[in-house]
C-alpha cells in the first residue's frame, strides 16, 4: 500500500527517533528505507511484547519511539501494553499490520479479522483504519493528534 520511502519520510517528518519492530510481509519491506533514512534507528526485537516495553524505556529516556508490528503480534502483546500504556501512561504510537483485511484469499476465514479491532478497543488504543494508498496523511494527522494529547494511538494498515 505504501512504499518504504513514504513511511520513512513520514516518520522522519513527525520526529520519530526509533522504530521497534517485528516484521510481517508488508511492514517488513519498509525496513530498508527506514534504515536508509539515517534519522531513525531501527530496533529489532524477538517478540512483540518486547517492543512496547523497549518503546517505554525509550520514551522515559527522552526519545520518540514507534512500535511497528503485525496484528498477530498485537495479540501477543497484551500484558506489555497493559503495563506500558495503562499502568505507566506512556503514550506509545504504533503501526499495526492488519492481516487479511484487504486480501482474504490467502488465508480464508482468517480470525485476525475477528479479533484485531476488538482487541484494540479492549486495550483502549485509539486507532485509524487505513485501507487506501491515499490515506498516508491520516497516519500523520493521527500521530500528531495523539502526541499532542499525550495518549497512545495506532494506525491499522489493511493488508
Amino acid at each position, binding site marked *: 500500500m505504501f512504499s518504504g520511502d513514504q513511511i520513512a519520510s513520514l516518520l522522519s517528518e513527525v520526529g520519530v527517533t*526509533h522504530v*521497534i519492530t517485528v516484521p510481517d510481509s508488508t511492514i517488513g519491506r519498509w525496513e530498508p528505507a527506514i534504515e536508509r533514512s539515517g534519522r531513525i*534507528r531501527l*530496533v*529489532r*526485537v*524477538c*517478540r512483540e*511484547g*518486547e517492543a*512496547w*516495553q*523497549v*518503546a*517505554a*524505556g*525509550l*520514551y*522515559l*529516556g*527522552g*526519545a520518540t*519511539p514507534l512500535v511497528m508490528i503485525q496484528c498477530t503480534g498485537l495479540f501477543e502483546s497484551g*500484558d*506489555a501494553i*497493559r*503495563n*506500558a500504556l495503562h*499502568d*505507566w*501512561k*506512556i503514550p506509545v504510537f504504533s503501526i499495526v499490520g492488519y492481516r487479511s483485511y484487504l486480501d482474504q484469499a490467502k488465508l480464508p476465514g482468517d480470525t485476525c479479522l475477528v479479533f484485531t479491532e476488538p482487541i484494540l478497543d479492549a486495550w483502549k488504543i485509539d486507532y485509524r483504519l487505513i485501507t487506501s494508498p491515499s490515506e498516508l496523511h491520516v497516519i500523520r494527522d493521527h500521530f500528531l493528534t495523539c502526541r499532542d494529547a499525550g495518549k497512545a494511538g495506532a494506525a491499522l494498515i489493511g493488508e
Partner: protein
Amino acid sequence: MAAASRIQLVSALETLWRIRREDEVVVTTMGSAREWMTLGEPHALDFILVPSAMGHGTSIGLGLALAQPDKRVIVCSGDGSLLMNLGSLASIVAADVPNLVVIVFDNGVYEVTGQQPTAAAGAGRPGGRGADFCGIARACGFDSVHAFNDATSWANDARSVLDAKGPTFISLDVEPVVGGTAPHSPGPTPARAERFMAALRR
C-alpha cells in the same frame, strides 16, 4: 564438607547500592525492587518497575540504554522474569548497547508466588541440572558474562564488572527469601515516571 552458602539477595543488592555511581540508572523489579526499597532513600535515577509486565525489565532497560547512551543502565531481574523474556537477550545484543548491564538474581524459584521451582531450576529437571543462564547469554552474543556464587567475590569484583564494556550479563546465585512477597508500589506510576524523566534530563 558443607555446601557453600548462596548469596543473600539483600546482601547482593547492598553491594550494588554501595558501588552505584550517581549517574547510573538502576531498574529493579519484583524481589529486587522489594529489597532495594528497604536499603535507603530512593535515588533519582532508580526506576522501580512496580507494577511490571511479565519479565520486561530487560526490555525497559534496553530502551533506556538506547535513549541515554551516556548513562550506564543496570537492570536487576529475577531468573523467573528472565525466562519470560529470554528473547530480550538476543535483542539487547542486536541493539549494540555497551551501556547496559543485566543482573540476574538466580534463586531457582518464583519467589513471590510461594517459591515454586522455575522450569530452568535444577529441582524437578532430569538429572537435576538447571539451565545455564550465562551460557544462554553467551550464545546470544554477550561477550561480557560473569557469574558469582559468593557474596565476597561479588563485593570485590562488582565495580570492575559493571565498568566493563557491555552489554554485560551477570548471574548471581542467590538464596530465595523466605516469605518474600510481591513488592508494593512506592507511589502513583505517572508521577514517578515524570520524576524519573526529569532526573534523566538534568
